[in-house]
């Protein structure tokens, strides 16, 4: 049983990253109509910013949780202003190719300077150790990642579904021309949305640094699974991408316990099944 709980915990941790990343992808897809293949590279950049802050500036994990998403968010907004905005109205394929190219360049630059092996980033003192829950031993940092990710996901959901700002965002996803004709600066809102989406990716990167180490290809490995998660959940729904993210993490964890050989492929098997049965994804709307 201990092993089962341990795998469930690993599943929830992975699910946290899936949820944070697929949430950002869904928000970006809604507003910009771009399948952001650079998402994994931006997640990696978040982890590296945390690493630089600590090792070059002596700035700790807690500040990194705030600073890294802002820095990477600004980087993302510059990408959007200088490149992505010109793709508005074109086929999805262009955005996919451009962001894929950006991902390769960013990852290549980091690999050039830091190689492919992981750089250590230690768990902050306040989150070291663990608690014995009776049925299992819970490392405090891992519990923190799950809870914090869940809070961030729900806060993002609240922002988009329940606030005036979110209403602008949802309306502009449907009909940007009309929203602009009401007096809202939609291009600026699109830039900020991209910043928010990649900021979430960077936040996931910081959270992941103490668990998975900091590696130039950490995002490239993860993003493939995240895209499968997005396909399964459907691009349309914020809550859908959160739930699907956590659920698939858990399913992966359970598979690791019951049939480890399939643990790396179970998400893709599910993706194939969902695509056959409901091509728009479990919560998605038809385009």
């Amino acid at each position, binding site marked *: 049983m201990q092993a089962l709980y341990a795998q469930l915990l690993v599943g929830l941790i992975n699910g946290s990253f899936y949820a944070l990343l697929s949430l950002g992808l869904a928000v970006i897809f809604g507003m910009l109509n771009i399948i952001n293949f650079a998402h994994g590279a931006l997640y990696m950049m978040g982890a590296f910013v945390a690493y630089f802050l600590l090792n070059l500036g002596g700035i700790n994990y807690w500040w990194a949780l705030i600073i890294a998403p802002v820095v990477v968010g600004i980087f993302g907004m510059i990408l959007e202003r200088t490149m992505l905005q010109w793709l508005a109205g074109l086929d999805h394929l262009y955005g996919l190719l451009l962001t894929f190219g950006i991902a390769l360049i960013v990852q290549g630059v980091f690999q050039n300077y830091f190689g492919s092996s992981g750089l250590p980033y230690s768990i902050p003192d306040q989150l070291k150790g663990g608690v014995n829950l009776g049925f299992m031993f819970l490392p405090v940092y891992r519990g923190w990642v799950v809870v914090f990710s869940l809070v961030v996901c729900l806060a993002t959901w609240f922002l988009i579904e329940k606030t005036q700002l979110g209403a602008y965002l*949802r309306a502009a996803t449907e*009909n940007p021309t009309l929203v602009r004709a*009401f007096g809202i600066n939609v291009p600026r809102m699109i830039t900020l949305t991209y910043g928010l989406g990649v900021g979430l990716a960077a936040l996931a990167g910081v959270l992941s640094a103490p668990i998975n180490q900091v590696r130039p290809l950490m995002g490239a490995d993860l993003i493939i699974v995240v895209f499968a998660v997005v396909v399964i959940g459907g691009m349309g729904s914020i809550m859908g991408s959160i739930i699907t993210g956590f659920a698939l993490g858990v399913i992966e964890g359970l598979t690791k316990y019951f049939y480890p050989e399939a643990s790396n492929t179970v998400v893709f098997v599910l993706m194939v099944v969902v695509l056959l049965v409901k091509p728009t994804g479990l919560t998605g709307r038809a385009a």
Partner: protein
Amino acid sequence: MAEAKLAERPVAAAGAEVLTVNDLQAWYGESHILHGINFNVKAGEVVTLLGRNGAGKTTTLKSIMGVIGKRSGSIRFDNKEIIRATSDRIARLGIAFCPEERGIFSSLDVRENLMLPPVVRPGGLPLDQIFTLFPNLKERLTSQGTKLSGGEQQMLAIARILRTGARFLMLDEPTEGLAPVIIQQIGHTIARLKSQGFTILLVEQNFRFASTVADRYYIVEHGKVIDGFANSELSANMDKLHTYLGV
């Protein structure tokens, strides 16, 4: 009570031109739609653009709103040239647009749809007055926007731009596809807005409806304004009008 509130508002002197359109040309991609539109709207007037389908009436409204990519000529609003302005800036000057397709957002509920357009200047209608004009909306605030009936959606589309403080409203075929009793209600609303000092530019196919609210008419054909007359000259122009509209 509404009238008292409105008296304090700075409205352009009655009769002053608020909108002057000169040699307006517009294109959708490669196709040249407007070939030199000329007309004006004075403060407090209801002006109606009449014309057959595809004559360029909607394109004219969209060009004024700045949502047509390529346009040339001159559009002056409140003595400011807006032909190069982006649509968000034009909205902030106090022009509000109610599109033909109504533009109710399905991912927003009725309240969110109503509260969506930002207030661009002080003096918009408060919510209680809006609900006096459109009592149905108050009952349905939590419904999904597109679950409303066609008439209610039209009312919502008009109601939400009254909140913003814009004093110049452009309504594109507000009666299209609606039942007579609803058309009548929209007619009353327009009359009431006019009495409160709003300036309204209307596009209508329903000439009978237009004649109940309009002060002046312009006839649009093949992307040009080919004629114009006041409501008082209507009966003298009836024959011409039938020829223009092909009714």
